[in-house]
């Protein structure tokens, strides 16, 4: 008998089920579609909903890191990915304006993204279980450029951090996966939102077969189109966040910005 549950397939599984934790993990799967549905009413409400989501994210970032210890954020990432994917595959492809090649490229990018994030989490879990990162690289006595991750309860180097949105520590062994995953997520979202927006809006030819959305005035007349449009706008928001994360990672490697006064400023984007 093959006795496998979804839990086994996920790299991260809690063996101690907790009522409150479960609730936190499920909430995003209910809140996000609700927000997206509300946003389909009109253009003004779309803007309001997107601003509210943005403010919520800023509020979470402004809180002390230890307080954000909840699976809510990881669930939010998963639910965002899931809903955007479903809307793309069912809603936007249903408009019959995406060629099979475009869909295939999208799926390929998405698969790669999922693989890298899966590896990132798997490596982090492995590190957490074995604690091998406390070896040579990490001295037991905290040095000036390393600190203790309260959430994972392991010591992390200053350049690395705990990501609440992935519910794991990004350490030296999985930093590569994290970076490539972010890059691929950026590419997937860019491609997906471009396909989506050019489908629901009037596009114009930018160059060759590359289209850009131009006129999105008549998307709210039909619920289907409005939902696709709103999800694409949400995707563009996500794209912007990923862009900031990548920019932050880039800035770290420029020596000038590694100085303490800059570091404080940049580390806001340690998501």
């Amino acid at each position: 008998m093959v006795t496998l549950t979804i839990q086994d397939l996920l790299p991260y599984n809690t063996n101690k089920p907790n009522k409150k934790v479960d609730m936190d993990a499920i909430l995003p799967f209910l809140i996000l579609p609700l927000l997206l549905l509300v946003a389909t009413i009109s253009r003004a409400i779309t803007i309001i909903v997107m601003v509210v989501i943005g403010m919520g994210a800023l509020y979470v970032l402004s809180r002390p890191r230890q307080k954000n210890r909840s699976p809510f954020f990881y669930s939010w990432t998963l639910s965002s990915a899931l809903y955007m994917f479903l809307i793309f595959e069912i809603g936007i492809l249903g408009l019959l304006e995406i060629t099979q090649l475009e869909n295939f490229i999208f799926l390929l990018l998405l698969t790669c993204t999922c693989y890298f994030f899966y590896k990132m989490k798997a490596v982090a879990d492995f590190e957490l279980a074995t604690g091998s990162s406390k070896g040579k690289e990490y001295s037991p006595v905290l040095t000036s450029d390393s600190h203790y991750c309260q959430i994972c309860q392991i010591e992390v180097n200053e350049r690395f951090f705990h990501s609440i949105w992935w519910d794991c520590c990004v350490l030296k062994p999985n930093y590569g996966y994290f970076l490539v995953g972010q890059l691929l997520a950026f590419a997937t979202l860019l491609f997906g939102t471009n396909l989506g927006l050019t489908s629901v809006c009037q596009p114009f030819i930018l160059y060759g077969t590359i289209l850009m959305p131009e006129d999105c005035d008549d998307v709210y007349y039909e619920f289907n189109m409005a939902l696709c449009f709103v999800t694409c706008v949400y995707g563009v928001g996500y794209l912007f966040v990923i862009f900031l994360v990548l920019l932050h990672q880039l800035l770290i490697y420029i020596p000038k910005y590694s100085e303490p006064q800059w570091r404080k400023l940049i580390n806001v984007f340690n998501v």
Partner: protein
Amino acid sequence: MRHAWKRNILCCGIFIVMLIIFLHPDMNARRSYEYIEKNDILSNLFEKTAENFTSPAVLHCEYHNLLFDDTTLSISLVDGDLVEGHKIKEGGEYSPSECKPRFSTAIIVPYRNRAEQLRGFLVYMHTFLHHQCIHYRIYVVEQLDSRMFNRAKLLNIGALAAMRSGYPCLILHDVDLLPLRPGNLYACTKQPRHMSSSINKFRYVLPYLNVFGGAVAIASNQYKAVNGMSNEYFGWGGEDDDFYARLEAKGLKMSRFEPETSRYHMVSHKSQHKGSGRQKLKVAKERMASDGLNSLTYTEIATVLHPLFTHIMVDL
């Protein structure tokens, strides 16, 4: 060990099934399709002018340069006005005076309730068609009653009127479509031609291979041979697929020009009510003999010759 192995296999299985589901083998939107090469267009054209049409010019018009014209017309033409001295006869008929046209075309536009759009369409189309050195006339067929819009029946009515005036070629044209390339010659090819195969609203792709709506060119005798379009499709959708099924039943193959030439701009508007034509579509070929031009019944309210178009007003 055994557990991990099973898990991997299960993962792979789920992944492959998901991939097949999400690759949508049933959806075949495409950007490329079979088309008539530019060099072969002239030999594929159906050359005939209207029965009672005579041109005072001596020389025949040349179309080679037009077909290889790579320019794109500006959409802002719809906001402008026609230039003075456009020589368009009452009823929206025009023929070039400097040469003898080889083609006569009746452009039939089903219409209801979009006065501003119609104005833009007429100005744009007359400007566009003036470049083409063809003899043409624009028929606008308006549905006056309050039933759901019946595009196919309106086209049948327009086609009958055009055929009575002796036009050998019909172009069935939606009012929201504007051709962008002068090289998209508004004449019939020997096989029925789907003209609007690259519409901006549809990301310049064909939603499916056999789509035959939007703007279509078909010779009058072929239109008669398939008994026109079905009169039963009220509401949006279905009638174009029905029409294609009729062509197929008569062994007529559809042709197209290349995507770059066939570019169209779709004027944005609210979506219409969807009709329930999908069930009718299954028996399209059986209904062909009894439903169409020969079963066309309607009340003609008036036919008015406006300066830019012939206006046929009907109750269905």
